[in-house]
């Protein structure tokens, strides 16, 4: 197999004083691949995601990304404006709580449209058209385009957050517990949407979750984290069906069958 990984993370570490967030994490992510990061509360998975995604500054490590224009760049060594541009265009971050990833004070359409404007789109009609197109893709009725997100249900807000994030055509999407806090039927719909979009758009994604069913469905590969370290890694179905580490075996055997 040839080609470069889209993202190469090496030696990533972050501590909060004496408390370890994550230690010495490294992995490659290839174009079109979805990587799941699982672990229980306190495992370091969210710290890891925030460090890679640019929300937190790690203590050590490299996050080398294959940018479109400039080749391989360590995003941790980028200037602030450069990194912010990256986070607005090529990257996207879907927060667990949609309110953290939406502007509640503007309409649904504006939430989607302003991302386009931030990267230079100027034609109002086309921006509104793109917003309508994306609302349809995430199954939000067109007549809601001028409503504020506060009027939406949790599942709808999450779908709006996804539309807002994907409208700029990013290549890499970070998701933090994308179905956390949602009703089961709503989760199923959201997962179906994410699955379809990832395949259709050829996205790469890193999805952090404690829910093994989510990774089984969405992720090609899996990292299992415990106490800040990656303790097991491999193909999703292999890690879940043939777990080697004691902790992984415990996690897998703890899931109730319905």
């Amino acid at each position, binding site marked *: *197999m040839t080609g470069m990984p889209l993202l190469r993370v090496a030696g990533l570490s972050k501590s909060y004083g004496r408390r370890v967030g994550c230690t010495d994490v490294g992995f490659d992510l*290839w174009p079109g691949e979805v990587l799941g990061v699982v672990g229980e509360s306190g495992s370091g998975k969210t710290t890891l995601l925030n460090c890679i995604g640019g929300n937190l500054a790690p203590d050590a490590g490299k996050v080398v990304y294959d940018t479109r224009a400039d080749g391989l760049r360590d995003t941790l060594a980028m200037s602030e404006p450069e990194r912010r541009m990256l986070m607005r265009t090529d990257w996207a971050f879907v927060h667990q709580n949609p309110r953290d990833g939406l502007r509640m004070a503007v309409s649904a359409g504006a939430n989607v449209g302003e991302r386009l404007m931030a990267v230079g789109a100027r034609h109002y009609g086309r921006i509104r058209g793109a917003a309508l197109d994306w609302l349809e893709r995430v199954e939000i009725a067109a007549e809601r385009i001028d409503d504020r997100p506060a009027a939406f249900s949790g599942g709808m807000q999450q779908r709006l957050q996804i539309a807002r994030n994907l409208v700029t055509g990013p290549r890499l999407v970070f998701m933090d517990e994308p179905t956390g806090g949602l009703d089961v039927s709503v989760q199923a719909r959201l997962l179906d949407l994410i699955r379809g979009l990832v395949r259709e758009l050829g996205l790469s994604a890193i999805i952090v979750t404690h829910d093994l069913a989510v990774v089984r469905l969405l992720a*090609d590969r899996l990292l299992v984290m415990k106490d800040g370290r990656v303790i097991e890694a491999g*193909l999703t179905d292999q890690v879940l*069906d043939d777990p*080697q*580490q*004691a902790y992984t*075996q*415990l996690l897998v055997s703890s899931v109730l069958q319905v």
Partner: protein
Amino acid sequence: MIEVEGVTKSFTLQNQGGAVLPVLAGAALSVAPGECVALTGASGSGKSTLMRMIYGNYLAPSGVIRVGGVDVSRAEPRAILQLRRETLGYVSQFLRVVPRVPALDVVAEPCLTVGMERAAAEARARALLTRLCIPERLWGLSPLTFSGGEQQRVNIARGFAHPYPALLLDEPTASLDEANRETVLRLVEEAKARGVAIIGIFHDRAVRTRLADREVDVSGFAPPGFEGAA
């Protein structure tokens, strides 16, 4: 097309006092294009285990497992993913149902994954579903509510949607009636005629006789001290 040499497998139950379950020792077999090899052996002798190792679903810590030139036991995850997309199909015993995905999409998915146009992929899916007697009114529904036999037929349709050069079949005719069993047998025979290398687990002797060119008794790979344990 498929080569297995010196493959050993045991499972260690870390949270149950480190109990070790040895399953296979020195497993070996090879399958040429157009051949169908049946894995036989008592329940628990390791037939499904071996099949899952060939698919890369179970780790193979020692030995060699080559499919179409790719060493599955040592390959990078993405090489195995590519192998599963393009080269090696697996029809398991049970359909893993994803909520909300209609039967038509379930069957079309392997074609879409290798880049076939949606219209062509759906046409192929419809043809297979028709052949396997899944009524059209069910095509738009999720297989969640289908009977066991119907789910299995959707599973089989999906397994034959993309023309894989190598196929692993785990009890493909279980839970099927006479007519549908015949359809599946024909599907397998057609695949053989196309040069597909097939490994199958068939408990039904008549099915085995009809499809298998050779049989490999997996209990011959029982770890030392465990022969005849079943």
